[in-house]
């Protein structure tokens, strides 16, 4: 009976998105809020089990595999959809929400997919709908960034599809469950490559800061929540305990931090910190213990909220002033104080400050690392968390709201706290960030496995406070070093930009060398030899034949008066008698005849 009542929350959003362009006037805003709330409600009342099985050709496609793992992701994603929609309620472009909802529906489709075919379908829907959130910014740069984003994701989708097809060919099973990660085969690696591209694991990450930095204000709020976290879900479902994910995750965590130091655009800085934070989740999936998987899910949950909050905070500055670069901002605390407070709460949450959400989620992954005796991983992740606080907790608020005032008169006048609905959205996210940090059972009771972890021990709190406070000390000591300049950073494109340059240089030098050599040998040496050959060859050949005859007759051959000299002189001066020419010709013909027969 319940199976009949099961309603896919993605379907609600999809239908809602299709009707949205028809809704006009006063109903518009109400409708905008109602649809994501219905989707959230559908998740809240959803029982566990397998639903939505549809026969298709020779397969039974499963659209609704509901268990604790999928529920926790679906819960936070639909909740974030409400917050994101509330944030974008000004609705300058109604099609922005159409794209955003289809995008969220794609994520939910992946979360509830029971087999790889359904997963792939929604995987592609995500890429093809989210790209509009970049394009709708209407700048030439965003159009290009959108195309790059689409190309990368289409390529990743093809790799994923290749893996799925090969896996089906090998096993005859399309079901999406834990893969054999101890003896991975080619299809498993291909599927992994498709997943980690969406998780933005270097070197498959450059699309993320590129697209998110160029997306619309509310588009970025959606994008930062769904693509990478759907990938984390897919990894947790299929690749728990795959050891290669641990070093990959640690590299991600550090990579994002390094780039954040160099970044001048606040939204691109936040985008690099997504890579860093998703690194913790990827490492958690790689560790694969119950604590680590719980940690990865909890961190994804907390991350969606605080990263959304950060993108909303910085996005509101962009929305009001049109600027997102530190070198165009500064000293705004008196103009946008509420945005400052919300961003600060997001910053403290991502930095895992005690009483904020990151503290209860991130530490689970680090603790799982220590428990598994992966000391290098745990220490490096702790190091990355110092970097997180350094940038998102300190650099972002400091250089936008304090620091040197780089605002033009125009920017300064435009800057004020954003419209009420934006503040409300940020307020809800900020409340949840603190609520998760203070009341741990709220999040812990939703996690896939029972939680025996207690974050609030005196040791852990002191440890975190020491790391964070002394990082802050370092920040203020080296403040000058951290002041952003008007620069951009090359990422993976360094390789093909520099690679192109190396190729060009190599080609030029190589061609020069080749040309010189060709001139020397083909242009000079070869004609000279040919010339000498054609001049002296007949004489030499003739000598070869006649010399034995001379020796036989006993005439002096060598020397000044020898016949050889007279003969060659005759040859050079072409003073041959017709008789001797005829003799030679006959001789040569006879030799030829002898060899041919």
């Amino acid at each position, binding site marked *: 009976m319940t199976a009949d009542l099961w309603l896919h929350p993605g379907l609600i959003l999809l239908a809602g998105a299709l009707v949205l362009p028809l809704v006009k006037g006063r109903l518009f805003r109400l409708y905008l809020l109602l649809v994501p709330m219905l989707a959230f409600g559908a998740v809240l009342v959803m029982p566990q089990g397998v639903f939505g099985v549809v026969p298709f050709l020779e397969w039974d496609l499963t659209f609704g595999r509901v268990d604790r793992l999928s529920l926790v992701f679906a819960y936070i994603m639909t909740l974030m959809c409400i917050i994101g929609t509330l944030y974008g309620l000004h609705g300058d472009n109604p099609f922005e929400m159409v794209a955003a909802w289809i995008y969220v529906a794609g994520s939910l489709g992946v979360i509830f997919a029971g087999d790889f075919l359904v997963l792939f379908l929604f995987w592609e829907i995500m890429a093809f709908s989210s790209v509009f959130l970049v394009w709708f910014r209407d700048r030439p740069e965003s159009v290009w960034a959108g195309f790059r984003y689409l190309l990368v994701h289409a390529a990743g989708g093809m790799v994923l599809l290749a893996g799925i097809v090969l896996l089906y060919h090998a096993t005859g099973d399309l079901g999406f469950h834990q893969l054999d990660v101890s003896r991975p085969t080619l299809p498993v690696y291909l599927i992994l490559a498709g997943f980690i591209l969406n998780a933005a694991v270097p070197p498959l990450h450059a699309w993320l800061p590129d697209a998110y930095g160029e997306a619309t204000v509310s588009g970025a709020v959606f994008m930062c929540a769904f693509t990478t976290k759907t990938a984390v879900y897919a990894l947790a479902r299929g690749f728990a305990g795959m050891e290669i994910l641990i070093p990959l995750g640690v590299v991600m965590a550090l990579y994002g931090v*390094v780039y954040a*130091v*160099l970044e001048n655009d606040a939204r691109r800085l936040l985008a690099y910190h997504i890579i860093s934070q998703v690194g913790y989740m990827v490492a958690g999936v790689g560790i694969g213990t119950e604590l680590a998987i719980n940690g990865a899910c909890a961190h994804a949950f907390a991350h969606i909220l605080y990263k959304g909050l950060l993108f909303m905070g910085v996005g509101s500055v962009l929305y009001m002033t049109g600027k997102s670069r530190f070198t165009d901002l500064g000293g705004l605390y008196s103009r946008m104080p509420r945005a400052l*407070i919300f961003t600060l709460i997001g910053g403290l949450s991502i930095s895992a400050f005690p009483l904020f959400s990151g503290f209860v989620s991130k530490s689970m992954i680090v603790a799982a690392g220590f428990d598994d005796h992966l000391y290098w991983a745990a220490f490096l992740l702790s190091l990355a968390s110092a970097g997180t606080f350094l940038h998102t907790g300190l650099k972002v608020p400091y250089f936008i709201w304090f620091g040197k005032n780089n605002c033009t008169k125009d920017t300064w006048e435009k800057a004020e706290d954003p419209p009420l609905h934006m503040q409300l959205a940020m307020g809800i996210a900020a409340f949840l960030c603190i609520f998760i940090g203070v009341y741990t059972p709220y999040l812990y009771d939703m996690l896939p496995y029972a939680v025996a972890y207690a974050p609030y021990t005196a040791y852990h709190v002191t440890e975190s406070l020491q790391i964070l406070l*002394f990082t802050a000390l370092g920040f203020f000591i080296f403040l000058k070093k951290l002041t952003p300049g008007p620069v951009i950073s090359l990422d993976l494109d360094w390789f093909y930009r520099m690679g192109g340059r190396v190729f060009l240089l190599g080609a030029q030098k190589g061609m020069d060398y080749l040309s010189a050599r060709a001139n020397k040998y083909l242009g000079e040496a070869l004609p000279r030899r040919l010339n000498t050959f054609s001049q002296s060859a007949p004489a030499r050949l003739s000598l070869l034949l006649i010399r034995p005859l001379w020796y036989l007759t006993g005439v002096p051959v060598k020397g000044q008066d020898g016949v050889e000299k007279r003969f060659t002189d005759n040859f050079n001066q072409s003073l041959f008698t017709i008789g001797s020419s005829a003799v030679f010709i006959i001789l040569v013909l006879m030799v030829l005849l002898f060899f041919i027969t």
Partner: protein
Amino acid sequence: MIVHLIEFLRHRLKRVIQICCIILALVVGFDALLLDKGKAHTAAENMWGFWALFGFVSCVVIIFVSKWFGKLGITRREDYYDR
């Protein structure tokens, strides 16, 4: 209200810095004198102020390694892509 609070603190910047330094000292002092290190994961953590040192060194390492990395040809002028 928020603005008033910030300006109140900014006008007493010296006092704020003093209080922050005291907080830093208190945290390390607590770690050195009172904290039960039974939950430490490694032997190195038994040293007092280990995590404070770790935090500060991490911060310095991140700043300088990143700056060095940027100088390898990563950071470019803003109009790099337009040229």
